[in-house]
């Protein structure tokens, strides 16, 4: 068939395997060319759906998404059980490690690091941990929380000095230092796609998040009794287990994805907007949390605020990644493979003609199992000789 949009002759299908455009659709279901109703990494979802797993774990196939979702829910259930049992120190530790450990499993599952697991994990998660330790120790030196304890008998007021430090200075500096490990990743040319940059950035941000949580809560973990009344800890545990790591990972992932786009010569409004969005979201998250806390708003509203910020970040990541995938998948040559989303056996270039998934977001095992053209296979032994 001839693609409605790029006019190439391509295999029959609902999607053009070269440019990913949705074929034969009307504008009612969205722009067929940009197909934002079919998120390129997971075509069953709209780009504007703030799903955690399909956004931050873009290489997962359809079945694996559910498995990781259940694993995440199991981890959260564990945190709740520990909280209800009054084992707050244990709940803090599980909360700090939950999302990063899931991400480590994901990196193994998708083999994003290809043949360089030690280097990639060292420079992303490991580097993030090192940066997190250094920055959090520095934070504790320059920020004395006791000097901002407000007068509990005065009307609700916000300490401007504390707000500027916690809500502006620290978020901006964090967003500058967190991408550094991924930025200096050696052999970057082996991981050229934006989706690689996104995953490395998220891994770096999650490494930072672990270090920040462990150092930040070290005095509490070591001073709390083994069993205490649960109190209002559930709110802080929710932030620690869910929103803090998602914020740190998403914001850094978006910035590193933008760097990857820049390296490919694609720096447009969408990419610049991504950096601005990451920094502003971090500022809004931290400053909003401080303001709401100081004004004694119900802690539930603080969680709602944090969820709204993280949700907006996730949607922007999907928007950025979706268009990057549409842009970048076209370079893949035709090959025989199994679509990780719909599991159809296909001959395709950049996109599955059946479901429209961008095949650059396929797990590495799937990419490796693509049967390349015979001429390249024949050349390989010749080179060895």
């Amino acid at each position, binding site marked *: *068939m001839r693609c409605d949009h790029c006019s190439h*002759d*391509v*295999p*029959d299908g609902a999607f053009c*395997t070269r440019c990913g455009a949705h074929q034969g659709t009307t504008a009612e279901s969205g722009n067929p060319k940009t197909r934002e109703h079919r998120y390129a990494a997971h075509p069953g979802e709209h780009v504007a759906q703030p799903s955690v797993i399909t956004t931050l774990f873009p290489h997962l196939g359809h079945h*694996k998404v559910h498995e*990781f979702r*259940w694993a995440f829910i*199991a981890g959260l259930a*564990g945190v709740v059980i520990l909280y209800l049992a009054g*084992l707050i120190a*244990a709940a803090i*530790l*599980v909360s700090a490690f*939950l999302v990063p450990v*899931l991400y480590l499993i994901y990196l*193994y*599952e998708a083999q994003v690091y290809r043949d360089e697991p030690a280097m990639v994990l060292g420079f992303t998660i490991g580097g993030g941990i090192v940066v997190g330790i250094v920055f959090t120790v520095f*934070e*504790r030196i320059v920020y*004395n*929380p*006791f*000097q*901002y*304890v407000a*007068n*509990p*008998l*005065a009307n609700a*007021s916000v300490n401007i000095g504390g707000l500027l430090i916690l809500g502006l200075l620290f978020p901006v500096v964090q967003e500058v230092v967190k991408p550094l490990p991924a930025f200096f990743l050696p052999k970057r040319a082996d991981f050229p796609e934006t989706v690689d940059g996104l995953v490395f950035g998220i891994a770096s941000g999650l490494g930072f998040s672990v270090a920040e949580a462990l150092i*930040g809560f070290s*005095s*509490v*973990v070591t*001073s*709390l009794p083994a069993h205490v*009344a649960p*109190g*209002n*800890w559930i709110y*802080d545990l929710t932030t*620690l287990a869910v929103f803090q790591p998602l914020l740190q990972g998403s914001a850094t992932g978006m910035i590193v994805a933008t760097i990857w786009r820049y390296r490919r010569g694609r720096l447009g409004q969408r990419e610049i907007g991504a950096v601005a969005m990451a920094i502003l979201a971090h500022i809004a998250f931290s400053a909003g949390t401080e303001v709401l*806390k100081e004004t*004694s708003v119900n802690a539930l509203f603080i969680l709602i605020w944090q969820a709204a910020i993280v949700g907006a970040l996730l949607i922007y990541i999907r928007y950025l990644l979706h268009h990057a995938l549409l842009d970048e998948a076209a370079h893949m040559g035709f090959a025989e493979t*199994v679509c*990780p989303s*719909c*599991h*159809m*056996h*296909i001959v*395709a270039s950049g996109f599955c003609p059946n479901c429209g998934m961008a095949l650059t977001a396929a*797990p590495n*095992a799937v990419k490796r199992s693509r049967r390349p*053209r*015979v001429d390249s*296979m*024949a050349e390989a032994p010749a080179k060895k000789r």
Partner: protein
Amino acid sequence: MALTCARCGAQNPDGNQFCQACGTPLSAAAVGAPPPPPSGPPLAYASPPPLAYASPPPLPVAYASPYYDPAGAAPQAAVHRTPWVLIISAIVVLILVMAGCGTAIALLGANAPGLGGSVAGLPSPTPGTSPSPIASPTSAPGATSASNTAATVPLPAGWTVSTQDAETLIVVNPNSTGSVSVASGPSNPRMTAQQNKDDVDKSLRGKYPDTAPCPGSKTTTGNINGAQGIFWNLCFTLTSSGRSSAAVASLFVGANSDGSVYYLVMLATTQSNLTSFTTESKPVVQGIQWKLK
């Protein structure tokens, strides 16, 4: 010999299995198709049946749908590297290991020395009924003072004012290990010292997750430099934006005779530092001069 795609006419390098322009299998349809190279494994999809969902238009040449399913119409098995049991197990192991570590650390921490017994001795509370006269603090060398409309607070050498507004002065010690908040202002409606204390309890409980009276501490009455009120201690975890400290607030709240003015002194520091900070801040607390009567 170059292969010409029978569908789109593109020239393909010798040995290609698919047209590099349109993806059409070349094995059957290519013009001048050579025999398969001996080193290339034969692909299994030589005769792909068309999928049920697609209705490919009739083509003038032997063009096959790119979809096919050797096992019938069913989708292929997903590529699984990590069994789901392993993923869930990893999370369960994480919970168990961290629960064990957290409990062990907490148990070890519980054996460490607890709060010093000096919390109640915060500003040398004077139990009794007669308010003391306002003290006339003796200035130490290098000492200055800070003042607002509510109070004047002496600043020993190295102490600094971190926050100041009409009602509140917060001063910090040289090592920044704690702070002394001194506040006074009109109460509207009028409040007794006990009502002020209830308000402070409620405010701190709303902000920090585990606010509770410190173990072994007592609530007493007394006065600070003429202000009559209540002394007590609250232990809590000071949390903000991913950081936390095991904190203690050694508190005094009072009210004037008709409840129209409140007085507050709060020493905030880490639980492990309470004893030394109380001693260090004594000159500050003893030198407070209340301006509102």
